[in-house]
């Protein structure tokens, strides 16, 4: 491909071939636009890490019917567990569903390996007619007459002009910052995830997690599992491996002076986790930042000639019950694509025209979901809900089930005593109950 396309600028330039960028490229290319998808990795997905459960099957099914028949998916999720942990105890909410939509098409969620899945998705965009260029770093935006008119890539004569730029360059989005749309982040707004893919025989995975065929599980852990670092842990099944990881808020890792990979080892050694990972062999260790604050870290989403989508826009819902990013990345990428298509039809790329992005984000339930759960992240990702209460629940169950000749206590006095023994004040507890209700109930 020539690097002198100035005379014939692209309609759309997309920075980053993750789920947001590739979805945007797929839709705009299908609309007949001249699309350039840029990726800094050796291949799309080479720099990408998440849990990874992809909950956007129904969304992708509208674009590519029966996509899972062709894509590199691992297992579809039929069982989810949220476990509250103390150092020696685990109390879990165990959800299983063999019903339609979970165990049948289009399936509710799939575990994926990002380097394989993201590469496949970018190939779909390429097949639809997008130019995909890998091993290219986008360093800056180009400005012309006060609007963004393209990107500067780190190559000889690396000025590439386009009518609209979509920044899908991830959590650290240099482009959103260069365009003046995003501010610097605080260490309490982001979490670090460290992850391992651990090889395990598929027959052992089936037996160990009570699975048939290609069923899979998604387990998530809260409480003492991260010691006193605000965060959690996860364990997911792939075809012949497990994906497991530990997530810690940066500010609390710093305050507690904890090394994330040491916490990860302690997670694997927990008595409720060790039997699940036993016999596994480490295949790959990885790490990535997570924009956990959601709505609170949302940048300005558009300006003259540019839109922001995916993690770059903070569209990652980390709100306890929900740990979803790829689906919102894809939805926001599609919303940006719809906006770009409309702007190309009008031949107008001003911020005023691109403002319709907000409407498309609403129609695709991105901004509505993030707005509805805007109170959840700061509270859910705080110390009491991620660490203290789960641990109290785990310890409480341990006392309820313990038979040691002492008189049995009823649950209310037991709970009263447990709360008294902890550092929580009754007023705080009441406020937290209200916060949980406000975050999830209405």
């Amino acid at each position, binding site marked *: 491909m020539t690097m002198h396309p100035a005379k014939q600028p692209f309609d759309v330039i997309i920075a980053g071939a993750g789920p947001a960028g590739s979805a945007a490229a797929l839709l705009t290319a299908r609309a007949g636009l001249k699309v350039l998808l840029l990726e800094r990795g050796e291949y799309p997905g080479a720099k*990408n*890490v998440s849990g990874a459960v992809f909950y956007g099957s129904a969304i992708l099914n509208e674009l590519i019917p029966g996509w899972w028949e062709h894509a590199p998916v691992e297992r579809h999720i039929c069982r989810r567990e949220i476990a509250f942990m103390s150092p020696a105890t685990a109390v879990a909410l165990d959800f299983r569903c063999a019903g339609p939509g979970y165990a049948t098409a289009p399936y509710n969620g799939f575990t994926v390996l990002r380097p394989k899945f993201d590469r496949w998705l970018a190939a779909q965009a390429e097949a639809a007619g997008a130019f995909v260029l890998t091993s290219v770093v986008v360093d800056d935006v180009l400005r012309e007459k006060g609007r963004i008119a393209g990107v500067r890539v780190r190559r000889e004569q690396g000025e590439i002009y386009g009518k609209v730029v979509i920044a899908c360059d991830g959590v650290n989005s240099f482009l959103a910052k260069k365009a003046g749309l995003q501010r610097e982040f605080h260490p309490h707004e982001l979490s*670090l995830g460290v992850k391992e893919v651990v090889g395990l025989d598929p027959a052992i995975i089936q037996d160990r997690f009570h699975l048939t065929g290609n069923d899979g599980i998604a387990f998530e852990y809260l409480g003492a599992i991260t010691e006193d670092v605000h965060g959690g842990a996860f364990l997911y099944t792939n075809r012949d491996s497990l994906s497991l990881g530990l997530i810690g808020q940066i500010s609390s890792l710093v305050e507690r002076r904890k090394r994330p990979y040491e916490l990860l080892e302690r997670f694997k050694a927990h008595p409720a986790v060790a039997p699940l990972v036993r016999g596994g062999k480490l295949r790959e260790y990885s790490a990535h930042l997570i924009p956990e604050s959601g709505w609170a870290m949302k940048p300005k989403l558009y300006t003259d000639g540019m839109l922001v989508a995916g993690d770059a826009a903070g569209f990652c819902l980390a709100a306890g019950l929900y740990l979803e990013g790829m689906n919102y990345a894809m939805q926001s990428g599609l919303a940006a694509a719809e906006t770009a298509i409309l702007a190309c039809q009008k031949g107008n790329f001003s911020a005023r025209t691109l403002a319709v992005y907000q409407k498309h984000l609403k129609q695709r339930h991105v901004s509505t979901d993030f707005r509805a759960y805007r109170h959840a992240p700061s509270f859910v990702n705080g110390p009491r809900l991620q660490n203290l209460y789960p641990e109290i629940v785990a310890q409480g169950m341990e006392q309820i089930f313990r038979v040691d000749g002492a008189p049995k206590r009823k649950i209310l006095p037991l709970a009263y005593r447990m709360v008294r023994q902890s550092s929580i004040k009754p007023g705080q507890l009441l406020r937290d109950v209200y916060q949980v209700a406000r975050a999830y109930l209405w």
Partner: protein
Amino acid sequence: MVMTTHEEKMRTVRFRVAATPHIAVNSEICRNDCSVHACVYVCPANLFVPLDDGGILFNYEQCFECGTCYIACNQEGAIRWAYPDGGYGVTFRES
């Protein structure tokens, strides 16, 4: 073995090392203005080594390009970074 040391973890990751570092650490700032040295703890690749004189030694070759050090650093300008050149740096295969 499922339990692994940090060295064993890092041996599973593929890096294509660029000729020039993509991260710069101004050790003067680490030495004079920072007593926290958060980068030493939070870096998932354990790339920051505290020196006896209070400075920080940095090794960029096995960087995950996650950005945690930049976010965690409480001193303006001590850590500067950009992504490595296209195709260089970490290449995940299974994550």
